[in-house]
């Protein structure tokens, strides 16, 4: 039934509920897409900030060296300072824009959770999704907690909000393979691992943005190999949600029902919405951690470059030779001693001579 294609007054209560549910699902998808666009915008701005900070450091280094050589006049210094101040003003403007985007994202999350709460049946009100629980996920993304804390929070919210959910688990992608990352119960992690090992089941089959549901893991004709699972915890329903951006899978969230039961249909939209929240939250956290790791790597690279530059300068002065020749001396010493060139350079800087063989 397409949203908006019927007059609500002509619909039975059941059809009206389905109609409203479809409209809410459309709104959820549009907002999830807006969230993903914001993630991409945040990532682009972080890269711009990092590049400009590196430009600032390079300019200070160049200016210091030029000043040492008395090659810098007041006009050059003033121009560089003006350019640096302009970049700082641009960074502040980008930070203000990012704050405004995050506030809009929080407002969308709260509205989404409110729609989910209205969509659940009155009998399930006590177990229905509450806006505050989902807002915790968004708030977590804003405070930059460790990744493991974010994962634990996602699973906690899943068990609290999805009716009939006995446990929840997450597997994450690393180096092209899926690995169990966390679970609210050990048996849930074992079921994830078993599915990944045999390569079948909802956890193994969920694609980015997709959902795979089964009423019974060991009795589903799609995956006869799972019937061989001997665990007493396996005879239950499950629904797995692929967490990803575009075609890239970041992970899979799997919800397991109580033993001997399965998830009723009306829980699917709640799980789907939770997966959308989890995708946004995990994507922000993983993006931030990746950016921080890259920034640290560049800082180490610049420090190494600086040490090697100083060592070359010392050797050039001692041997009255060129910069290229000085680099070759460092390189050959590194090869001969089987130690990294940076270590050789650091020795030259501190001891004013090459390390001994």
């Amino acid at each position: 039934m397409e949203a908006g294609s019927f007059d609500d007054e002509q619909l039975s209560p059941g059809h009206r509920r389905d109609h409203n549910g479809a409209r809410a699902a459309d709104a959820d998808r549009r907002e999830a897409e807006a969230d993903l666009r914001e993630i991409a915008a945040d990532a682009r701005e972080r890269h711009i900030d990092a590049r400009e900070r590196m430009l600032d450091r390079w300019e200070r280094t160049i200016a210091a060296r030029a000043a040492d050589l008395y090659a810098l006049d007041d006009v050059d210094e003033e121009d560089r300072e003006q350019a640096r101040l302009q970049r700082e003003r641009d960074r502040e403007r980008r930070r203000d824009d990012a704050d405004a985007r995050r506030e809009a994202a929080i407002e969308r999350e709260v509205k989404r959770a409110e729609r989910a709460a209205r969509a659940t049946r009155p009998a399930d009100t006590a177990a229905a999704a509450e806006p505050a629980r989902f807002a915790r996920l968004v708030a977590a993304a804003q405070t930059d907690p460790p990744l493991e804390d974010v994962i634990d929070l996602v699973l906690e919210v899943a068990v609290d909000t999805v009716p009939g959910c006995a446990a929840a688990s997450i597997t994450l992608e690393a180096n092209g393979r899926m690995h169990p990352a966390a679970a609210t119960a050990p048996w849930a992690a074992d079921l994830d691992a078993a599915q990944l090992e045999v390569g079948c089941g909802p956890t193994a089959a969920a694609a980015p943005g997709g959902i795979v549901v089964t009423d019974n893991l060991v009795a589903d004709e799609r995956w006869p190999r799972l019937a061989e699972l001997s665990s007493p915890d396996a005879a239950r329903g499950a629904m797995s949600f692929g967490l990803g951006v575009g075609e890239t899978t970041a992970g899979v969230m799997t919800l397991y029902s109580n033993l001997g039961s399965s998830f009723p249909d009306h829980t699917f939209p709640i799980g789907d919405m939770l997966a959308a929240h989890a995708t946004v939250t995990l994507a922000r956290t993983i993006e931030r951690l990746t950016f921080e790791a890259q920034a640290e790597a560049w800082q180490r690279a610049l420090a190494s470059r600086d040490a090697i530059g100083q060592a070359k300068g010392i050797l050039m002065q001692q041997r009255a030779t060129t910069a290229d020749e000085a680099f070759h001396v460092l390189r050959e010493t590194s090869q001969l001693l089987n130690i990294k060139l940076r270590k050789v350079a650091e020795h030259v800087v501190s001891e004013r001579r090459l390390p001994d063989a």
Partner: protein
Amino acid sequence: MSTSAWQALAPACRRADLSIVALHLRYVALGGVAPLSTLTAHLASGAPLSAMEHDVAVHAINERFLELDDGERVPYEIARGPR
């Protein structure tokens, strides 16, 4: 530069499990001055890169083999005798 020197780099990076981005970072850390696009083009199609800069990239790969305790080494372009 010898015609085959640049051709040895990409396969060596694969054996060393070194992406082009990671190689460029290590290359910059050693004092290399070429941008990522130039280094990428050099590995892919032999785009011009001075022998000196080529050897900086070679040393970055060789230091990765050293980390992996792998005895493989890529030969340098600028051959040098005993000092």
